[in-house]
């Protein structure tokens, strides 16, 4: 056993080394994209030359990302507990949750910088980046608590809070930790995106933006690596903690959860009321926030202002046409990119069970794609793939797969031992075990992963459109920023949020009957 483990570790190390050597050779010979991919040695050299520049930038980014991480995740766990305990709150909060998740960071970063000062925009974007992942994994974890344990506590007269304190929080811990694992790179990315919006002299994003025009790919990569390192360390920290807890959380035997939740027993009028509420709350919040901050009306469009812009002004017709044309370009690519991203994540999650060694080797590469700011990667991808739709799809896959993969892998790893013992006893191969037990047993996680992927796919397409192809909603957003057309910025933001909500609801519509038929609960 020990020898096998060492051998596995060794082969992972060997794979990394091979990868590194290949990269060095490609970089040296300028094979890829005529020098857009520099060799690791020249990146390191450049890092050494620039070493005095880094500390203030890293500190500034860490400050924004760290504060955002703390605030966003505290709010997320609290909200997750609230939603898991009170299904009605979950139903009401859904609108706000999806809106927060789907909020295109690039669209609001200039608005935030205009409204707030100092590190606040960074903290807000980093916190928003953390909120949804951690909130939804908290809800998933709590609602997947073994029903038998809850029975024991209830049998001794324990109420909602005893159940929460003694069973649910602890059994949700691995799920929460895997949420934090995804949230960590998100926080770094959020801070960097806010730095792009301007304001402040320090931060890796500021540094990157300043180096962008100078055609020094080795410096861009160096900055990207620094960002990756920060996110990677946070990711590794939470992985380590998670490994310690997951083993002891896995149920030994198969729980037989009672089918059917109480959520479906609400009368129609109440459900309609809750749906209406969940749509109105984000709109009300949007309005109240603008009033509370006193942003000038020219920049800050209230719902009424936006309606006026789109329907009542003399050139509303032109605005509508622009918006619809952009939507027509973005929509099909989003659907394809989403499907590909989810398929890729699913394949990886299966691989993490079938060939854990390969996944261990791949993880750092995957992490780079999450934190390596797309601004640095995009020129490379454009040179490799051109400026067609394929570059959009690749970028979309790269931003979509990661959270979906982590959630799915989490689900697969939580399958109880006894459930796997039955097929194993009949000599089932690992693949058969996956097909018969692991995949069906982790369906709630698979659906939760799909819901996570939906708004991110749209985000990916828009980033790619902005940075690479100059088409669709992403480009419209960028143009509007240039023209100071704040009405259009708001319109794009609102349309992209609405699109995410529609996709999200489609997944929910499929999820509910599928899980109900198998006697499972949807993980919120």
């Amino acid at each position: 056993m020990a020898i096998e483990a060492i051998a596995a570790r060794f082969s992972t190390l060997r794979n990394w080394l091979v990868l590194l050597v290949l990269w060095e050779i490609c970089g040296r010979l300028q094979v890829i994209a005529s020098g857009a991919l520099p060799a690791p040695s020249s990146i390191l050299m450049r890092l050494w030359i620039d070493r005095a520049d880094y500390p203030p930038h890293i500190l500034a980014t860490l400050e924004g990302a760290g504060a955002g991480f703390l605030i966003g995740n505290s709010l997320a766990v609290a909200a997750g507990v609230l939603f898991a305990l009170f299904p009605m709150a979950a139903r009401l909060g859904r609108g706000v949750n999806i809106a927060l998740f789907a909020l295109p960071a690039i669209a609001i970063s200039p608005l935030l910088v205009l409204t707030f000062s100092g590190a606040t925009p960074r903290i807000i974007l980093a916190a928003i980046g953390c909120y949804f992942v951690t909130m939804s994994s908290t809800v998933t974890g709590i609602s997947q608590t073994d029903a038998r344990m809850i029975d024991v506590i209830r049998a001794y007269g324990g109420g909602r809070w005893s159940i929460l304190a003694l069973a649910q929080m602890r059994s949700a811990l691995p799920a929460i930790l895997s949420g934090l694992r995804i949230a960590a790179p998100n926080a770094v990315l959020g801070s960097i995106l806010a730095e792009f919006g301007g304001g402040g002299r320090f931060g890796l994003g500021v540094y990157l933006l300043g180096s962008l025009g100078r055609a020094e790919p080795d410096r861009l990569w160096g900055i990207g690596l620094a960002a990756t390192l920060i996110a990677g360390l946070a990711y590794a920290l939470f992985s380590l903690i998670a490994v310690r807890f997951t083993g002891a959380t896995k149920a030994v035997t198969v729980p037989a959860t009672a089918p059917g939740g109480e959520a479906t027993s609400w009368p129609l009028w109440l459900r309609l009321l809750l749906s209406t509420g969940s749509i109105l709350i984000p709109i009300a919040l949007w309005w109240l926030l603008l009033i509370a901050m006193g942003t000038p009306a020219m920049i800050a469009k209230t719902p009424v202002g936006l309606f006026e812009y789109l329907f009542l002004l003399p050139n509303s017709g032109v605005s509508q046409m622009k918006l619809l044309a952009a939507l027509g370009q973005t929509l099909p690519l989003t659907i394809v990119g989403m499907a590909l991203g989810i398929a890729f994540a699913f394949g990886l999650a299966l691989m993490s069970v079938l060939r854990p060694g390969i996944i261990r080797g791949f993880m750092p590469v995957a992490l780079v794609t999450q934190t390596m700011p797309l601004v640095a990667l995009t020129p490379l991808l454009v040179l490799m793939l051109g400026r067609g739709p394929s570059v959009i799809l690749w970028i979309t896959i790269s931003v979509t797969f990661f959270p979906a993969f982590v959630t799915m892998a989490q689900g697969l790893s939580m399958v109880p031992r006894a459930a796997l013992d039955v097929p194993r006893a009949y000599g089932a191969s690992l693949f058969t075990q996956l097909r018969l037990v692991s995949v069906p047993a982790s369906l709630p996680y698979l659906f939760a992963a799909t819901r996570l992927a939906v708004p991110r796919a749209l985000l990916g397409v828009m980033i790619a459109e902005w940075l690479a192809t100059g088409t669709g909603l992403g480009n419209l957003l960028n143009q509007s920023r240039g023209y100071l057309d704040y009405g259009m910025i708001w319109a794009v933001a609102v349309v992209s949020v609405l699109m995410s909500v529609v996709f999200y609801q489609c997944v929910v519509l499929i999820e509910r009957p599928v899980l109900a038929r198998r006697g499972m609960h949807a993980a919120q």
Partner: protein
Amino acid sequence: MTGQSGIRLENVSRSFKGRGATVQALDQVSLDCPAGSFTALIGPSGCGKSTMLRLALGLDHADSGAVSIAGITPMEAARAGMTGVAFQDAALMPWRNVEDNIALPLDVLRKSRRDNAGKIASLIELVGLSGFEKALPGELSGGMRQRVAIARSLVTNPQVLFLDEPFGALDQILRRQMNVELQRIWISSRATTLLVTHGIDEAVFLADRVAVMQSKPGRITRIVDIPLMRPRRPDIFTSAEFHRLEDEIAGALDGH
């Protein structure tokens, strides 16, 4: 505590609407367990024994009929710390070690663990798990986990005890030992006990009365009194009277 801790089920019905079909798990079931009595519940698999226990514990609600413990609702009785339960499935928390799992009811009832440390140690000793105090459930065998669940059911000194096939995963010899121990505990505590079992011998050895159930729909068809003297010794298993009672129950199970 006489007269204060009886279990009462009156005309209780419970059906489950599954996906499509409806199962009548319990149909107009009445059972009265006087305070301090020991009742065994026996019947074919799927006849509604566990369902009855869940109703009596207040974990589930009847479609019709009334359930009470000591004259109050099961939930009130549970909150007062009167009840103890061992489920058919051990239902241990995988992150708590043996000691901590046994102490769980104390945590729920907000009772001090330190005051009960001696109790926990003696229960571990009783179920033969000395040396495994710090082991996690994943490191125990099925029978060992079940013994933890039995110890857990006794930690609060319950006046009303529910046991759902608590010895199902134990070997015959250990099972007999545990039967003897359970009788000893019961005689000293006189807790009103409802034991679900598949073992006719176990039911006769332990109970004052054996309620025999039939399925589809689940109902009690016969109550057999066990007039054997207490304390009953293991050699009673081979006595003629014992065999006669066993035959009577077997007949009732067959539907005679």
